[in-house]
């Protein structure tokens, strides 16, 4: 039952948020998000301690004529990490915007909580049809959110994002239908794995690409990334956090959970090509990040590079690499949320996203600068920050991949890491150092609320940097 509540509470909370009086809605949303977080933490402890009597799987009949069941469960460390991440991000978002409430609060919080319910469903679903339904459903509230709140070009940009991902998902649905024909008319994960194994190589290849394109658009991997920088730039910060910290992880998660186990032969067959695309994403994302003057676009491209590295580690199909990816998916979510919060503080006070107009903030706002530096360093995976261990393990996996080009791939990806240090440090320098100008002179340091949020994020970063065992224990293979 605990598992169902993880979906049900944000779902009902979201619907309630749309109907209640506007002055109560913020506190209601925070309450719902924290309840969900408590449930997720409870799930985590039950999983690690193997509490007897607590069932982390729930199943109920759904559409009997199709053999589809409402089947959800916390079955492995990866889904726990993703559920925890989803549960942590939302309270942070809600608290961080306490002093700068969006317009039409009911709609905003309602849709945010519905998005959370959908995302939870994606990470918990154990049934292919249910997974597909949640995969699409998570997109709808996010589509509405990013179209309603954000920059001037948000409507066409979000539209592109929607049509892109919707087209991808539909192709995935067609592939699921074809796999389904080879099962005993069931949608359960197990029967999909069985059906996938029974397919011959030619069919596996076709289905692999049909499904991979859907996931690659979501991640996004070069050359399917074109929606991403625009969407991140134009959406309002809370929505960008949901997009970049959680939604892109759906793609990675789905590859690990649904693509590789169901179509293992094709995943090996196309390893080289996908590793190449992933590594191109790393290098391309890094180079593009270096030449950006808009801070939001810079972070967007850096995210493409990071996701590219994770995708490379997944397709290298080494245990250690996969472990690293699982950890990094969680940590990247935390770090990029921190970065977006920093950016939103900058944007709110300076009313610009242009790096060339910033400078000298370290002189007027030391606390802000510390937070900026720590979170940025975590983003380039400096040792003792949370990003380091995962990145190390991912490189280890990539280097040991069963691919003839593994050394070239590793070197190219390593180049991406070096570049990431370049653009991140340049960004810090442009924002915080140099001389103040008329714009940054009056930059106010962090408020109590902002301090609280950023200190919490920094604590998580450092704690997981010093003591990564908490995450590693979950994903031991």
């Amino acid at each position, binding site marked *: 039952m605990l598992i169902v509540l993880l979906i049900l509470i944000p779902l009902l909370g979201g619907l309630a948020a749309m109907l209640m009086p506007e002055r109560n809605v913020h506190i209601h949303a925070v309450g719902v998000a924290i309840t969900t977080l408590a449930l997720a933490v409870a799930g985590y402890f039950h999983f690690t301690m193997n509490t007897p009597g607590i069932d982390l799987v729930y199943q109920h009949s759904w559409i009997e*004529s199709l053999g589809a069941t409402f089947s959800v469960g916390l079955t492995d460390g990866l889904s726990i990490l993703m559920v925890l991440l989803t549960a942590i991000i939302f309270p942070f978002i809600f608290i961080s915007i306490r002093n700068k409430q969006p317009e039409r609060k009911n709609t905003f919080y309602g849709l945010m909580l519905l998005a959370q319910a959908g995302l939870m469903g994606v990470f918990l679903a154990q049934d292919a049809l249910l997974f597909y339904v949640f995969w*699409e459903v998570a997109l*709808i509230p996010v589509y509405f959110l990013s*179209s*309603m709140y954000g920059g001037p070009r948000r409507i066409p940009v979000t539209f592109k994002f929607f049509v892109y991902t919707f087209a991808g998902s539909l*192709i995935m649905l067609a592939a699921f*239908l*074809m796999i389904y024909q080879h099962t005993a008319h069931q949608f359960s994960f197990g029967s999909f794995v069985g059906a996938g194994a029974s397919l011959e190589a030619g069919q596996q290849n076709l289905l692999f690409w049909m499904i991979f394109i859907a996931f690659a658009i979501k991640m996004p991997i070069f050359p399917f990334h074109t929606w991403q920088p625009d969407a991140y730039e134009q959406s309002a910060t809370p929505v960008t956090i949901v997009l970049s910290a959680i939604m892109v992880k759906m793609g990675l998660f789905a590859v690990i959970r649904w693509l590789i186990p169901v179509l293992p032969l094709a995943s090996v067959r196309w390893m080289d090509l996908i590793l190449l695309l992933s590594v191109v994403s790393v290098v391309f994302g890094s180079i593009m990040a270096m030449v950006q003057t808009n801070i939001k676009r810079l972070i967007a491209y850096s995210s493409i590079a990071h996701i590219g590295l994770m995708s490379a580690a997944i397709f290298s199909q080494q245990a250690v690499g996969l472990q690293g990816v699982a950890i990094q998916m969680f940590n990247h979510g935390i770090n990029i949320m921190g970065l977006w919060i920093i950016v939103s503080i900058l944007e709110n006070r300076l009313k610009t996203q242009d790096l060339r107009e910033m400078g000298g903030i370290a002189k007027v706002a030391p606390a802000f600068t510390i937070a900026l530096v720590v979170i940025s360093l975590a983003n380039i995976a400096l040792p003792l920050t949370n990003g380091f261990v995962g990145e190390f393990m991912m490189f280890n996996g990539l280097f040991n991949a069963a691919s003839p080009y593994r050394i070239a791939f590793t070197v190219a990806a390593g180049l991406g890491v070096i570049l990431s240090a370049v653009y991140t440090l340049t960004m810090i320098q442009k924002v915080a150092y140099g001389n103040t100008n008329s714009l940054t002179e009056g930059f106010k340091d962090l408020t109590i609320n902002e301090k609280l949020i950023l200190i919490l994020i920094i604590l998580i970063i450092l704690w997981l940097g010093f003591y990564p065992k908490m995450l590693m224990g979950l994903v031991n293979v």
Partner: protein
Amino acid sequence: MNAIIVSALAGVVMMFTGLFFKKSGQVQGVAILAVLAILAATGYDYFLVSQTNRSYFDMIESDHYTAWFNVLITACTTMYVLLFHKDIAKVGRNDAEYFALIYFVMSGVYLLSSYSNMLILFIGIEILSIPQYILAGSDKENVKSNEASLKYFLMGAFTTGILLMGITLVYGATGSFDILSDRFSVQFQNTAGLNAMSFVGIMMIIFAMGFKVSAAPFHMWTPDVYDGTPTAFTPFMATIAKVAIFVAFIKLFHFSFGNVNDAWQMTIAAMIVLTLLIGNITAVYQQSVKRMMAYSSIAQAGFMLFAIYAFNATSWNGLLLYSVAYTLASLGVFAVLIRMKDYTYEGFQGLARKHPIMAATAAICLLSLAGIPLTGGFFAKYYVLSATVEQGKMLGLVVFAVLMAAVSAYYYLKVIMSMYFKEGEAELTEEPNGIYHFLLILNAILVIAIGVLPGLILR
């Protein structure tokens, strides 16, 4: 088959209502009672059906599927009458006659869902079509309405001739009108044994049916007719009257021509490709939401044709689901559209802020038409495509169809973008009242309920 009789009687009663009741409100009241009576009759039919039984000299065949389809489609009609009765009465001075025509169409719907004789098929199609020609032209002072009626009538009458010729040729080949008879099964045993006469007959029937369901390349009349017809009648013609023909279509081609599918499946496949392509691509370029919905109804017909193409158990289920999901979703969109002063996309701008319930219902219905999960439209598309995959031939067709579904998301979302994300003063012709809001919410809930639990519809 009480529904056939009750609906025909309801039509006659409605015609006399105009004599006795002078107030439009009273006529509408009788009309609502009449549709409830028809609904009760279909419910009673469903209650009576225990197994397949044939009646009226073996010309009518009713089974669980037919009876259940009748109940569902009549429930949709009830929804239509409840949502639109005021608008129907407002079209012109002959309010009672409009309702009478609608109930005569329903009589045709029941004949089409339960025929087992090709003569009944023909009569059913005629009973279904002729009132529609009149309804299309019911706004007598409007040139576009007159054009719609004339166009529909001329082309429809011509197509009826082709259908009749097709039926005649099939009769000539088999010597029987009874689609379940031994003569049919002998004649249509396998493709090799098919003679030229029956092949031409089958093709003519396909073309005529394709015209009636607005499948390309026989779709030319659709945009003008649906656009020119008064908005109160367009949703009825585009949904309820259309899906009934699909049921007649699949019945004939599954039970009678199923064994000779090699002869006609490629034709249907070509029609599917053309219909999806023309319907979806042209819909993208429309300026008026009403005209967009006309093209979208062509595109949706393309999806329903998959059920004919696959002709298996899944496709029967899919057709059932598609009929209800598509009808309810279209009704929801049209119920909002008819209240708008300006039918263009600009006219919808700012609707969400001024009338959130109308906008939310329209949005849910549009998402359902696009086939987003958790709305009825998803499982409708799912079932018809699944039926095709099950059949195992032409999987490329399925991939093509899902890409076209993505295109359809483009124009459906354009309406949502206008309503929700653009600033404007969406003007209504009439302020919505409580009952209207209640019906809209009910409609939206039904669309979602089918999307969450399609088992409610399936039998």
